[in-house]
């Protein structure tokens, strides 16, 4: 009963982060701030949901699998965020150069 309540609080918290991240993705003006919003949703949102679900997993093995999914998703999200940020930076610099020479 208490476990169920904790699960609900944690997953609802995760959903809140996802909602905020989505809002940021839609509303923020440039690539870097949009990435900032998105990675928070990925890390904290998914992390809270995984924590909440791990309490319901039954066996420690299943809970560890859930945490592994979170860890992998975080590593993948962090890497792609870096790559996107870098390529956005490079293309912005190129655009600035183009503006200056024109």
């Amino acid at each position: 009963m208490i476990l169920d309540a904790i699960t609900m609080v944690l997953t609802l918290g995760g959903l809140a982060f996802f909602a905020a991240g989505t809002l940021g993705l839609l509303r923020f003006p440039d690539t870097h701030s949009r990435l900032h919003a998105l990675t928070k949703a990925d890390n904290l949102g998914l992390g809270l949901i995984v924590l909440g679900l791990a309490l319901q997993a039954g066996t420690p093995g299943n809970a560890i699998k859930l945490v592994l999914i979170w860890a992998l998703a975080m590593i993948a999200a962090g890497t792609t965020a870096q790559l996107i940020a870098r390529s956005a930076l490079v293309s912005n610099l190129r655009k600035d150069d183009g503006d200056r020479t024109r």
Partner: protein
Amino acid sequence: MIASGFDITVCVLLCLCALAAVTGRDTFRAIVFFIVYGLLISVAWLRIDAIDVALAEAAIGAGLTGVLLLGAFGQMGSADTMAREPRGAVLIALVAGAGIGAAVLFAVQGLPPEGAGLTAEVLAQLEASGVGNPVTAVLLNFRGYDTLLESIVLLVALIGVWSVASETGWGERPGIVHHARAGGTLQSFGRFLPAIGLVIGAYIVWAGSSGPGGAFQGGTVLAAVAILTILAGLVDAPRVTTRWLRWALVMGPGVFLGVALLGLFGGAFLVFPQAVAYPAIVAIEIVLTASIALTLVLLVLGPPREAPQ
């Protein structure tokens, strides 16, 4: 109550994604919605406990096909908006789509509410198949020719991709040369992930004989690992004329065909006697995985290119 609410939400989202993927003239948007559609479809398969199909859909339907479509989009250059279709064609497509939808609805209405399909027959014969996973039993034993033909279709697709290679590019390495910063984010990721990816891929293949998993799902994970190491510039793709590569590509369908022909001695084409069914299926799964993974990697990389001067 909550469960049916979830199902209805997934169904509505599926319809919206499908609509967004086929309407509108922005190709990139269509691809993104197609990928989301594939992920939602795999959630739908999960909801009806078809974990094998869900895995295959997520790995191949959404993941691999998505990568192939994005790759093709990247090569299209400026021609990224579709031409407006003639109104007649849209009308015909609408009528045909509505007709098929109505026919499917009609057919689903006519199904018996419980115990539809061949589940009982498959479970009754499961012992004879040599494996514990009914889906694997169907795919590699009862209806083995489906999987055999699928593996050959993949090979034919790769021959199709290779056949558009330019005259001077033939015999070179497939795809473009990738440069990643030495020790940068992508290279570190490319060094770290294979350790986990190889274990998960091999596990999915091995699990296929007793639970959800199999050659196609595991092969896709292994292919993703290989593509990542090539993207990170850690490994060069092999030249398309490499002998071991050619052998590895035909090995899966070849061994499958060979075992199927051996079945002629036991009764008929593709018949595995119960005593040897388990080792035969596991052997086929393993070589098939290698061939599928390699084929998928080469499909994503594309035709061989001219070497830079």
